């Protein structure tokens, strides 16, 4: 089991979520975050903005779904065909166990 954390542009949230849902990855947790990346924020007319609003999607998936998930996020979170600075990042970490509270069963 893996935890995928994708930081994407807020304006891409709806599209990414609906495409993920269509591909069968319906469950997601959405967090509004601020941050900066490798470009050290953006500089507009002399002012540096380094707390850029982004959206973080958190999804727990089975190991075999990883490639599908990454492909979908890469496809729909990009602001243009070739991508641009600020389109975001995807982090993947292992999950030891997941529990569904309603049933108490240890499964995804």
């Amino acid at each position: 089991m893996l935890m995928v954390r994708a930081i994407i542009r807020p304006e891409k949230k709806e599209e990414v979520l609906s495409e993920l849902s269509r591909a069968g990855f319906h469950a997601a947790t959405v967090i509004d975050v601020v941050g900066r990346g490798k470009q050290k924020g953006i500089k507009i007319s002399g002012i540096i903005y380094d707390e850029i609003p982004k959206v973080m999607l958190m999804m727990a998936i089975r190991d075999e779904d990883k490639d599908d998930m990454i492909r979908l996020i890469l496809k729909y979170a990009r602001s243009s065909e070739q991508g641009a600075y600020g389109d975001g990042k995807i982090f993947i970490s292992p999950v030891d166990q997941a529990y569904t509270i309603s049933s108490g069963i240890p499964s995804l």
Partner: protein
Amino acid sequence: MKEIMAVVRMNKTSATKKALVEAGVAGFTAFKVEGRGKIVTNPSLILERKNELLLMAGEDQTGEAEKLITDFLVGTSICPQRLFTILAHDDEVDKIVQAIIAANKTCNNVGDGKIFILPIADAVRVRTGETGETAV
């Protein structure tokens, strides 16, 4: 060392906090998040609550209220949730998970949330600079 991430109902925040204190872990971080879970494919699971909510909606000629209620119960809409992250020693994980489940279980069959357990490579206490298990 493990990180326990629990996504629970918004109105279960204080119950969860209380359960954590009783389980012997007072430290946690909580976030306001939005989320959705698996789609409910079995309509009988939500039938009772649907009728209940429809009664509360009152006169509904446009069918808008019914659509909102269905989206909410089936899980196609994104709703506010609370995310707890708790750092725990390996041997305490099970106890904490059971405490969270006990505090958050409702009789609604679905939508009570999820708990994830992730491995943590290292932790540092800022005040003393301690690392590893002692920092938890």
